[in-house]
């Protein structure tokens, strides 16, 4: 049995070939920064932040559509906090709010049920962004809307799925030798979904929890398994191979696989979810929101999201692009890689 001290020593003293490990979950990026993990690794172990923060990968046309809706008479946009400050092609929802847009921030999609019932003359549009972790919650919302026969709620969806985009990154030649697999997503999907990709590219995946110890153990496992197409589950307390079948089945009731546009990365076939045909009447025009215009041409969020550069390699980082005035989406959320590097003084 190896001890945590031995794992720490191994990671600090590692002198094998350089290894690039990508974390594809914004919560992991945040936890890595908060635990000071970069300071505990050998210079040969490089951490890269991937496209795992849902607001970071939402294309500008989606934000633009939300803003346009929020300005329409009788329309109210409900959203999670993070999304409010993400720039569209010219402004954010927060900017639009200053110009009279009707935007309410909620902590759970279920909050919208009461709001809509009390205000039947208005149409409430929920900005439904997220990965496999959040989609089942929108499915629960759909369940309630239908059960309670609420007529004035719609979804504007920009839902993404994880395994397909990881495959896409590897197809595009991202310089990645191992993945720290997302803990929350794996709870729902099961770690089995990563096995075909691990085998295809002969790279190790380590499913990790979010404590410092769990992250160190997973990183150790990934380095040790470099070159092997294996998926190791280091979060067995909540992650299984099959995942949460109930949540998956609820999701499948209302949503189906679609193509999706990722900010800075373009279209990735089969990497999204949208409402099924029979529930399209609850959709507020999510189809076709693929275009993606940078607010600032020099922004390099796309390369950050693909692990090609570190956030601090972007010419705007910490200069014109800061949390108070983000030029790209990765500087908005606490789970965005640029925000996490900036707020925690990370350089590696």
């Amino acid at each position, binding site marked *: 049995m190896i001890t945590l001290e031995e794992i720490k020593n191994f990671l600090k003293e590692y002198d094998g070939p350089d290894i690039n490990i990508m974390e594809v979950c914004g919560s992991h990026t945040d936890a890595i920064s908060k635990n000071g993990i970069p300071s505990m690794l050998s210079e040969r172990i490089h951490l890269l932040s991937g496209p795992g923060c849902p607001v970071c990968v939402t294309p500008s046309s989606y934000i633009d559509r939300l803003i346009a809706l929020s300005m329409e008479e009788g329309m109210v946009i409900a959203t999670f906090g993070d999304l409010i400050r993400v720039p569209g092609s010219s402004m954010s929802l927060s900017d639009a709010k200053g110009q009279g847009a009707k935007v309410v921030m909620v902590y759970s999609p279920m909050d919208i049920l009461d709001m809509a019932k009390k205000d039947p003359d208005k149409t409430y549009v929920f900005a439904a962004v997220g990965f496999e972790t959040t989609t089942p919650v929108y499915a629960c919302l759909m369940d309630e809307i239908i059960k309670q026969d609420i007529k004035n709620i719609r979804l504007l969806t920009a839902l993404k799925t994880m395994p397909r985009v990881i495959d896409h990154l590897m197809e595009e030649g991202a310089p990645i030798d191992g993945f720290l697999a997302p803990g929350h997503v794996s709870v729902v999907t099961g770690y089995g979904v990563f096995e075909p990709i691990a085998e295809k590219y002969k790279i190790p995946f380590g499913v990790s929890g979010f404590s410092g110890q769990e992250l160190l153990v997973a990183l150790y496992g990934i380095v040790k398994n470099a070159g092997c197409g294996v998926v190791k589950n280091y979060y067995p307390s909540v992650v299984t191979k099959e995942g949460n079948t109930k949540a998956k089945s609820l999701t499948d009731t209302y949503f189906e696989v679609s193509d999706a546009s990722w900010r800075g990365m373009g279209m990735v076939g089969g990497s999204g979810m949208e409402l099924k045909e029979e529930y399209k009447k609850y959709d507020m025009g999510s189809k076709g929101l693929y275009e993606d215009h940078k607010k600032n041409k020099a922004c390099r969020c796309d390369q950050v999201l693909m692990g090609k550069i570190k956030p601090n390699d972007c010419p705007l980082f910490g200069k014109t692009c800061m949390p108070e005035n983000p030029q790209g989406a990765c500087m908005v959320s606490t789970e965005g890689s640029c925000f996490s590097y900036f707020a925690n*003084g990370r350089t590696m």
Partner: protein
Amino acid sequence: MNKTITMQHGSGGSATAELIHEVFESAFSNEILSQMEDAAAVDGAAKIAMTTDSFVVTPLFFPNGDIGRLSICGTVNDLLSRGAYPKYITCGFIVEEGASVDDLKKIARSMSETAAEAGVQIVAGDTKVIEGSGGVYINTTGVGFLTDDRDISAANARPGDAIIVTGNLGDHHAALLSCRMEVENDIQSDNAPLNDIVDHIRKFNIHTLRDVTRGGLATVLKELAEASRQKFIIEDALLPVDSGVRDFCGIMGLDPLYMGNEGKMAVILPEAEAKEALKSIKESRYGENAAIIGRVESPGSVEEEGGLYSRTNIGGLRSLSVLMGEGLPRIC
């Protein structure tokens, strides 16, 4: 009088007089205020500390506190942060039409009780009524006496100093967020006047005192490190955080280091005196969970000057900045 505030209550006429009499005078009455002069004439000191703060919190009432108590605590604690003895407070109310008179009475009573606890007199006040939907906003200005030449300042932290925090982090912020989100839990606001803590440690050679409010401990310490041009190091394992607040933060994706308090101080003084000072704080009212959490070091490089670092629980080193963004809960 009416049960809710109307624009008439701001007219300056009889309705205003009735509001002042029934709500404020009855709660605040003292020999200075009761003179009803345009300005209060009070005893002074050779050197005074003065501060002002505005309170716009919602909801007006939250677990273990309300906007009235908060408006006294905030200003009193700012005076204490300069080592002053808080003496006088003035309060300006901006009340939106539709506000409940009963709520105003409760707020005024709470201010009066908190002022008594903090040993300050409310010597002047003003009320304005504006259009709106029942909101209440309070500004308080405070005066404290400075009785010696000690210079307690943000810029005075020195290498070899210890950093003490006088209690659990994030209580107020977590209580308010829980209220707004209608999450049921036992988290209570820590809003409190900290006179007793400061009085207990006046005998020590305090370099810096700072009220830990918006932005949380990390923001406050980063500002102090920059003002003093030193390097601060804190230990995550030593930070006092209530288990309920820690769990709430974990679920919401918030960091207790960036959660606001309304009844905590950061105290910086020479390490040699730290243990005795900690003992004194722990014996004070509201100081039972105080802890020594870190130290001030001489910066080893230009980058480290004004730097705030935390040694994490697993032994990593993290560089901390002031609060960025709005501390919004995460979405996944």
